[in-house]
């Protein structure tokens, strides 16, 4: 998965042309996408892309955050609830 930041709003079509798929649209110019490696290399040298970098999901960290935030919105442990 890659974090892609474009210079124009035509980012999604660029990603699709190179065989990629959009996973999450953060805004018009910033998205998380999956790409074949050739597509990554192609976008790296594309002047319409201001940044592209590989990212991975840290499942442990995501679970920990969800747990932490769930605690803050749940009743105090030890109480009857």
């Amino acid at each position, binding site marked *: 998965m890659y*974090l892609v*930041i474009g210079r124009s709003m035509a980012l999604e079509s660029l990603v699709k042309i190179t065989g990629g798929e959009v996973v*999450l649209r*953060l805004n018009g110019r*910033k998205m*998380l996408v999956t790409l074949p490696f050739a597509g990554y290399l192609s976008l790296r040298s594309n002047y319409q892309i201001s*940044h592209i*970098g*590989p*990212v*991975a*999901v*840290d*499942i*442990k*960290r*995501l679970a*920990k*955050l*969800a747990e*932490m*935030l*769930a*605690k*803050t*919105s749940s*009743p*105090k*442990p*030890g*109480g*009857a*609830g």
Partner: protein
Amino acid sequence: MASVGQELLAVPLPEMVMKLGLGIAEAQRALDENSVETAQLLADTTVPLVLAVTQTIAADGTVSFVNADPVNVSLLQIGLMPTFYQFSEATIEVTMDIKTTTSRETNIKVSAKAKVGFGCWSASIQVDVSHNRKFGKEVKGTSRLVTKMVPVPPPERIAPELTVVDNRPPKETPDNA
């Protein structure tokens, strides 16, 4: 004429190793810079995260859903990490094909001439000898550089540690009152 051993010694292996090392260092720096830049962008990008959805089933059986207020969290906080790569292996292969040839050629040309006249005679013998020695050397060389990259875990301190300090007093119940 240089021997095969001398030809092999002439291969600039230290220079090749040095250039490979510098190339790897340069590539590693570029990779790390890209990963750090990605980490910065992940930290700067926030998304609204809905942490709880309440499902209510009414007496008449209708179901409704209410989302909790979204919390803005950065992509780094929710566990999206830049991928870091490291060169784990580098190989240099040098293949040389050396062919040396020596050929020697000797040409001898002998000619004799005789003349007989009135009371005298003459004779001459002419010998031409030529030596040719040819040296041939053919060196073919190929080199192959192979590097292997592996993903490595991001630095441990790239994202802040998440801890919860809950100072709310416990609710009073008949058991703990």
